[in-house]
C-alpha cells in the first residue's frame, strides 16, 4: 500500500526522469572535484615549495582553477536539471490535483473542507517542489563528501583516518540528536502560535461582544498569558538548538587537534609530509559543513514527503458517483419524483432525510418549508444529483436520475444556493456561466426577471461592471439577485431557489415571485423558504421536520391537516391576525 502510494506522486517526476538522474550525477561530479582540492594543495606544499619548483606550483594552481571551473560548470548544469525536475513535477502535481478536485462530489467536498484543499494546492505543493529540488541537489552530494573525505583520509594515512572514523559518528549523533530533540518542540511552538493567532482573531471578530461585556482587560490578560507560554517554549527550543553549533565546533576542532598530534608523530616518523597533515585538517572541516547540510536536507525532504502524502491522499479519492455519457430526451410529464428517499451524509451518525415521497409535475411550483436543520437543502440537493440518495429512488422526467449524464442534469436543474456566490470577472462573465452562448438580450431578460436589471443599469459599466473576488463589491441582496439571474440565463427545466431570497426585502421578494410566474414556457420551480408567505400559492408544499416529511399539500390543506405547518404559519401570522 505504502509502496503504491509513493508510486502515486512520484509519477509526476516521470516526465523529468532524465533531469532527475542527471541533476544528482552532475552534483556528484562537482563534489568529486571538491575532494581533489586538498590533495592538490598538499602537493603544492610537499612538492612545489619543498623543491622550490615554481613551474610545478604554477601548474598545480592552474589545476586548482581548472577544478573550480569544471566544478562550477557541473554545479550550474545540476541546478538547471534539478530546478526543471522540481518545478515541472510541482506544476504537473498542481494541475492534476486541481483537475481532480473538480471531479470530487459534494459529499467528498463536505468531508474535506475547502481550506485544506487550498493548503494542499498551494503551500503543500510548494514544499514538495522545494523538497524535490533540494533532494536532487544534495542527497548524493553530502554523503558523498562525508564518506569521500573519510576515504581520502585513508589514502593519506591509515592512523589519522581512524580519527575520522571516530569523529564522523559523534558529529552525526550531535547533529541528528539535536534535530530529533528539537523537532517535536518546534511543532509545539507552532501549535502555541496557532493558539495565539486564534485569540487575536477572536478579539477582532468579537470586538463588539468583548466591549459590550466590558471584558477587554480579561481578554488582554488571557492573550498575554498564552503569549508568555509561547515565548517560554520558543526560548526552550532556542536553548536546545543553540547547542548544535558550539558542540559540533568543539568536536571538529578536537579532532583537528588529534589529527595534528597524530600527524606530527607520522611526520616525525617520516610517514607523512606536512602538506598531508594540512590536507587531513582540511577534509575534517569539510565534513562538518556537509553534515549540517545533510541534516537540513533530511528535514526538508521529510516535510516534503509528508506534504506529498497529503496531496496524494486527495488524489486517491475516487469520485463516488458515476454518470453515463449518453444524453436522454427530457420528455416525461413528472418533472421530479421522490419515492421513499432517505439520505445519510458521509460520516454522519443518522439520516438527514427519511422516507420522503412526492411527485412534481412539469410546470408546477413546489414549496419546501421547515425549521433550521430540517433537511430542506438536502432535498433540493438531490434534484441535480449533487448527492445520491442512500435510500429509495429519485426520478427526473420519468427516469431514474442516475441514467442522465452530469452535464445534462446540471443544465436541466439549476440551483440558486443559499449563499450567493459570484466569481471575479464582470457581471456578464458571471451570467454567462448559465449559458455561454447567451445574447445580451437574453442576459437582460434574466436580469429583469431576477429584479436585478435596475441596479445593473445604474452601474457605470452595466453588464461589464467588474465583480471582485467573491462579489465583495456588491451587497448581499444584489449578489442574491445576480445568482438568480445566472440560473435563469441557462433556461433550466427546473429552477430551484434554496432560500435565495432571504436577503431581499418583502417587496422585492414578492416582485421576484411575480416575475418568475410570468415567464413563458413550462419551467418547474422549487422554492425553499422559511416564510409561509413565499409559498402560499405553490401547487404543493412539502413540510419537513427533522428530516421527515411532516406534510404535503396546498397551503389551505396544510393549514387544516398539518400541525407543524400551522405552527410555522402562526408564528409568522399570529393567531387571528389580519387576513392576508
Amino acid at each position, binding site marked *: 500500500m505504502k509502496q503504491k502510494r509513493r508510486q502515486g506522486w512520484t509519477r509526476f517526476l516521470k516526465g523529468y526522469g532524465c533531469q532527475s538522474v542527471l541533476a544528482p550525477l552532475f552534483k556528484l561530479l562537482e563534489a568529486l572535484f571538491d575532494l581533489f582540492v586538498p590533495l592538490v594543495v598538499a602537493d*603544492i606544499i610537499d612538492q*612545489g615549495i619543498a623543491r622550490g619548483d615554481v613551474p610545478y*606550483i604554477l601548474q598545480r594552481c592552474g589545476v586548482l*582553477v581548472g577544478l*573550480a571551473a569544471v566544478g*562550477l560548470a557541473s554545479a550550474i548544469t545540476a*541546478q538547471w536539471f534539478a*530546478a*526543471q525536475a522540481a*518545478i515541472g513535477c510541482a506544476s504537473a502535481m498542481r*494541475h492534476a490535483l*486541481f483537475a481532480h478536485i473538480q471531479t470530487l462530489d459534494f459529499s467528498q467536498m463536505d468531508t474535506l473542507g475547502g481550506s485544506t484543499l487550498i493548503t494542499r494546492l498551494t503551500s503543500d505543493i510548494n514544499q514538495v517542489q522545494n523538497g524535490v*529540488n533540494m533532494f536532487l541537489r544534495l542527497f548524493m552530494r553530502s554523503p558523498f563528501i562525508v564518506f569521500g573525505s573519510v576515504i581520502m583520509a585513508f589514502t593519506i594515512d591509515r592512523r589519522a583516518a581512524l580519527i575520522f572514523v571516530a569523529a564522523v559518528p559523534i558529529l552525526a549523533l550531535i547533529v541528528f540528536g539535536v534535530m530529533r530533540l528539537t523537532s517535536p518542540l518546534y511543532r509545539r511552538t507552532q501549535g502555541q502560535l496557532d493558539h495565539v493567532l*486564534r485569540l*487575536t482573531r*477572536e*478579539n*477582532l*471578530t468579537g*470586538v*463588539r461582544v468583548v*466591549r*459590550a461585556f*466590558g*471584558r477587554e482587560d480579561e481578554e488582554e490578560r488571557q492573550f*498575554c498569558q498564552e*503569549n508568555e507560554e509561547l*515565548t517560554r517554549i520558543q*526560548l526552550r527550543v*532556542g536553548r536546545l538548538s*543553540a547547542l548544535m553549533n558550539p558542540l559540533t*565546533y568543539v568536536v571538529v*576542532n578536537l579532532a*583537528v587537534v588529534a589529527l*595534528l598530534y597524530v600527524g*606530527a*608523530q607520522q*611526520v*616525525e616518523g617520516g610517514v607523512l609530509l*606536512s*602538506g598531508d597533515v594540512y590536507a587531513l585538517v582540511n577534509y575534517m572541516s569539510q565534513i562538518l559543513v556537509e553534515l549540517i547540510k545533510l541534516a537540513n536536507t533530511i528535514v526538508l525532504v521529510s516535510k516534503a514527503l509528508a506534504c506529498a502524502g497529503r496531496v496524494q491522499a486527495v488524489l486517491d479519492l475516487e469520485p463516488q458517483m458515476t454518470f453515463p455519457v449518453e444524453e436522454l430526451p427530457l420528455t416525461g410529464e413528472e418533472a421530479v419524483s421522490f419515492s421513499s428517499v432517505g439520505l445519510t451524509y458521509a460520516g454522519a451518525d443518522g439520516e438527514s432525510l427519511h422516507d420522503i415521497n412526492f411527485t412534481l409535475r412539469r410546470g408546477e411550483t413546489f414549496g419546501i418549508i421547515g*425549521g*433550521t436543520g430540517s433537511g430542506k437543502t438536502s432535498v433540493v440537493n438531490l434534484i441535480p444529483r*449533487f448527492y445520491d440518495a442512500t435510500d429509495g429512488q429519485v426520478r427526473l422526467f420519468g427516469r431514474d436520475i442516475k441514467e442522465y449524464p452530469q452535464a445534462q442534469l*446540471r*443544465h436541466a436543474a439549476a440551483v440558486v444556493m443559499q449563499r450567493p456566490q459570484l466569481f471575479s470577472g464582470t457581471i456578464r462573465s458571471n451570467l454567462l*456561466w*448559465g449559458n455561454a452562448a447567451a445574447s445580451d438580450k437574453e442576459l437582460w431578460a434574466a436580469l429583469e426577471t431576477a429584479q436585478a436589471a435596475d441596479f445593473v443599469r445604474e452601474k457605470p459599466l452595466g453588464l461589464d461592471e467588474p465583480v471582485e473576488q467573491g462579489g465583495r463589491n456588491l451587497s*448581499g441582496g444584489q449578489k442574491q439577485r445576480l445568482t438568480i439571474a*445566472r440560473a435563469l440565463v*441557462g433556461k433550466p427545466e427546473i429552477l430551484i431557489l434554496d432560500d435565495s431570497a432571504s*436577503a431581499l*426585502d*418583502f*417587496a422585492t421578494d414578492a416582485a421576484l*415571485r411575480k416575475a418568475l410566474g410570468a415567464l413563458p414556457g413550462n419551467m418547474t420551480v422549487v422554492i425553499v423558504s422559511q416564510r409561509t408567505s413565499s409559498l402560499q400559492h405553490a401547487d404543493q408544499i412539502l413540510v419537513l421536520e427533522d428530516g421527515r416529511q411532516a406534510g404535503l399539500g396546498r397551503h389551505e390543506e396544510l393549514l387544516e391537516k398539518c400541525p407543524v405547518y400551522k405552527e*410555522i404559519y402562526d*408564528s409568522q401570522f399570529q393567531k387571528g*391576525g389580519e387576513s*392576508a
Partner: protein
Amino acid sequence: MNGKGGKKGQGVSADTLRRVLRHIRPYWAFLLLSLVLAAASVGTQLVVPILTGNAIDEMVGAGQVNFAALAEILGVIALSVAVTAAAQWGMNECNNRMAFCVSRDLRNAAIAKIQVLPLKYLDGHPTGDLVSRVIADVDVFSDGLLMGFTQLFSGILTIFGTVGFMLYIDVPIALVVIVITPLSIVTAAFIAYKSEKYFRRQSQVRGEQTALINEMIDGQKVVQAFHQEENIIQTFDEINDRLQFASLRAVFYSSLTNPTTRFVNSMVYAGVALFGALSAVRGGITVGGLSSFLGYANQYTKPFNEISGVVTELQNALTCAGRLFELLDEPEQTPDAPDAYDLQPQEVTGAVELAHVAFRYEAERPLIEDLNLQVKPGQHIAIVGPTGCGKTTLINLLMRFYDVADGAISVSGREIRGLTRRSLRRSYGMVLQDTWLKSGTIRENIAYGKPDATEEEIITAAKRAHAHSFIMRLPGGYDSVVSEDGGNLSQGQKQLLCIARVMLYLPPMLILDEATSSIDTRTELKIQDAFGQMMAGRTSFIVAHRLSTIREADVILVMRNGHIVEQGSHETLMAKDGFYAKLYNSQFEGVRI
C-alpha cells in the same frame, strides 16, 4: 547597513529602526553581553587557523618535529575552542532572549492596542490583515532580528578579523585576497538582480493563482452546479504554465548564487595558494603560514554571503515591524474623560434620549441626520426599514461603538460621552445577528458576561434561552468545547447560546439586533416568552426583519436612508398606510408564481 538598507523610503525605514531599538532597550544588558560574546567567539575562532599553521610549522620533516612546542600549541587550540563554544552558546541564548522577548512585547502591545482602537478602524480593516500583522509579521520580525543579531555582528567582525590576521601574516597575499573578494559580491549582486525580476513575476503569478484557487474551491459547488469544471481547469492551467515558467527561472537563477560564489571563493583560494607558495619558495612565509592563509581563504567569503542574506532578512524584518507599528500608531478611541461618571446598574432608569443626532461613516455620504428620539423607561423600541437604512448604525451609536458626529445621546439623563464606556455598555445586554462565541467550553461562553456565575445560574439561563436541551445532547454537556467561532454548532444553536449569555447577566437595557434571525420561527416562538420575561420592564431596542416579531413594540421607528420616516405603534402606523404599511403588507402578498 543603515545607509544600505534604507534606499527606498529612507525616512520610514530609519524611523522604524529607531523604534525597534527602543523596544530592544529593556534588554540592553543582553544586547551588550551578546556583542561581547560575539567578539570573544570570533576572536578565538580566528586564532585557530594561525595556531594550526604554527603547529604545522613545528613539523618540518622526519625527525624534526618539536613535540614540546606542538603540545603547547595544541593546548592553546583546545582552550580557544572551548572559549569559542561557550561564547557562541551564550551569545545564542542572549539573542534568543532578546528576539523572543521583544516579539512578545510587540504582540502584547498589539493586543492592548486592539482593545482601544475605535471600531471605525476595526470595521474598516479586514480581520485577516490585522491578524497577519500581529502574528505573521511579528514572527518574520523575530526571525529576522534573531538572524540579524546572530550573524550580522559576528559576520562583520569575522571579515575585519580575517583581514587583520591576514595582513598580520603577510601583506601582499592579503592584498590578493582583498582584491579578488569584491568579485564575489559583484556576482552575487548580479545574480540577485537578475533573479529578482523572476521572483517578482513568480510571486505575482502565484498570487494570481492563489486567488483563483481560493475563489474556485470556495465556490466549488457552484462550479459543479453550472458544469464549469473544464473552463476553470483551462484558466488554471494557463496560470499554472506561466507560474512554471517564472518559477523555473527564479529558482534556477537564485540557485546560481551558491556555486558562483563558491567559484569565486575557489579563485581566492587558488590565488592564495599561488602567491603563498611563491612567497614560501622565496622564504617569505612558512608552510604553516600558508596553511593558515588557506584556512582563512576557505571561510573568508562565507560571512559576505551570510551578510547579504542577513541584510535582506533584516530589511524584511523592518518592513514587517513597520506594518505592526502602523497598527500601533493608529489613533485610539477618545479615552474616557478623567471625570467620566461610572454609571451604576441601579442608577439606570432606562430613559434614553437622542437629540439632533447626526452620523456618517464616510465624510461625503451622510447617513443619519437630525435624529430625535425619546425613550421612556421600560419602553420597547422596534427599528425597521430596508437594508442599509441605518438600523445597525443606530445601535453602534447607542453602545458608543461609534461617536455621534453631531447632537447627543443621553442615558438616564446623562450624556453618554460623560460616562465611562464600560459602565455605559454594561447597562445594555446585546444579542447581535453575528453570533460570536469564544473558543472555550459552553459554560465559559454562557458565563462570559458574569464569570463568577454559579452552575445553577448558568443552567437556568440556558433553560430560559431554550439552549439547555441541545447542550445536554452534546457529548460533553456544558463542558463541550466550542471550536473557533462555534464551528461545530449550527447557526441557530450559536444564537441560542448568545441569548443565554445575556439571560445570565441581565442588564437594565437590551439591544436585540436580528437576535432570532437564524432560529426557525417555531423555536423562536418558543423562546418568545422567555424574551418577553427578559424584556419586561426593561428598555429594549429591537431590530428585526420579521415584522411579525415587532408588532408588540411600544414604538416602531421606521427608518429609511438614515432618517426616521415614521414613528408610532403598529396600529397607528398601519392606519397611516404609509411606508410601514407597505413594508408590512408585502410579506403577506402571496403572489402567484
